[in-house]
């Protein structure tokens, strides 16, 4: 079913909307949640919570891309769950992605964390604009979707080594960009 029709079902408050959403995006949502949580039960729970969140937010929200919207909800819920679990273990793809990013974020002092995160988010968005389309996609696949290097390599039909190299260059660029923008977080 088309995304627009599913959204219409949401607006009509038809429970069929959840069913159709599940049919169309369950695999994708499970993958996003699974990459972060590395636990199938936790991932299923987050995905179900995301359906409920979508039900509660549409309307009034009318997302341009339903898949991106739902995936973002799934990701946010998964990150919440991840941080709740993080004291117990660190073994997901998401851990690896975060480790890589930590190295390229310049260290700052005595800045409000929430503000810093927002500022950093905006800087990353503008940095993404400067990247080529493929590099941008790889960056988002790696650090937003938390896909593994091998998955990205298969997706772009290139070698894993090539993906690693390109991502390393992007991270270096990001570091320079953030320094240039005077962002210290």
């Amino acid at each position: 079913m088309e995304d627009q029709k599913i959204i219409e079902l949401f607006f009509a408050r038809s429970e069929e909307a959840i069913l159709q959403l599940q049919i169309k995006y369950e695999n994708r949502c499970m993958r996003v949640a699974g990459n972060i949580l590395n636990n199938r039960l936790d991932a299923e729970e987050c995905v179900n919570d995301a359906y409920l969140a979508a039900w509660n937010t549409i309307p009034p929200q009318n997302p341009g891309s339903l898949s991106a919207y739902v995936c973002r909800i799934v990701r946010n819920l998964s990150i919440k769950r991840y941080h709740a679990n993080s004291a117990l273990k660190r073994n997901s793809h998401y851990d690896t992605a975060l480790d890589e990013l930590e190295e390229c974020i310049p260290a700052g002092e005595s800045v409000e964390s929430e503000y810093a995160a927002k500022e950093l988010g905006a800087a990353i968005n503008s940095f993404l604009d400067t990247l080529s389309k493929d590099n941008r996609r790889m960056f988002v696949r790696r650090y937003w979707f938390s896909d593994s290097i091998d998955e990205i390599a298969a997706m772009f039909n290139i070698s894993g080594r090539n993906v690693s190299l390109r991502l390393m260059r992007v991270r270096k660029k990001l570091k320079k960009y953030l320094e240039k923008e005077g962002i210290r977080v």
Partner: protein
Amino acid sequence: MNRFDISHAISQIELRYIEEAMEADQKFADRKEKQLYQLQKRYRPAVCIFVGFLAASLLTITAFATSESFRNTIISLLYPVYSSNEIKALDDGHMTGSFDEVDTLLSFLDRFNNEKMEFGVLAENNAGYAYSLRSYSSDNILAIVQCNIPNYKILVTLEKLDYENTAGLWQVVSYQIVTKEEALKATKNMPEYRPDMSDAPKTSKTSIDSTDSIMDVKGACAIIYNAADKNSIATLTEQESRQIRKLFEKYEDTESKSITAMGLQDLIIRYEDIMYAFSTEGDVLIMDENPISIPRAQIVLSSEDLELLLHIFYKYGI
């Protein structure tokens, strides 16, 4: 900055970038689907051929195992020589003549095997060829010869040709590889061949049913010896002489086992005596001697040999 803040910052990536990244995923899925389709498309004919071949093989094997007629058809296709009804005529270069039809046949069979006239087919030779002679007339013989292929026979045609002042010269003019059934069909109602059939009755007084019979050869020889007066000896043809000699030679391996058992060596000696008498017309040197004093012995004879002896007995009223 802690990991929580970094993940929070990354979460703020705009939806358009996320959507753009999702396209890569979609393209990958499409590519995979396309590859799978191409793979299927590429190998589908091969798979279809393989499945068809497998099914055909299974059906063929099953039919081959269960149906005798199908099995024979397949063998006929693979080895056409065995079932071909084609008569192989011998060219002049391969024809050899002899006054003795059996001699002619045996010579031919020797050459048939030695020269491997038919690929994979040999006349069976276990201390002698196994054959049976059939004929409607005295100058034409059909020999059914056992061959190494089960259920197949070699049909050999011999013809007697006029040759100067002799009784005739036997030659093998053709042969044919046929199934046992075809051999039976070809020789159905055809009587057993006997030498000089034009003179002898068409059917023998004694019928030969078994392949091998026990015959008191020594006794037979003695009977011939005793019965042969000067006149009857004179009527023994050269061919008959040779036949008897061959018969004795054939069984020469049989040796005397005791004083009461006579071997073929003894018989050959007696034969030489008989021949001597035959060859010295008017000489009765040994004619009055009584060879029956020689101990009796039993020797296994083939049906053809027994038949030959009986024929001679009959001809000379023994």
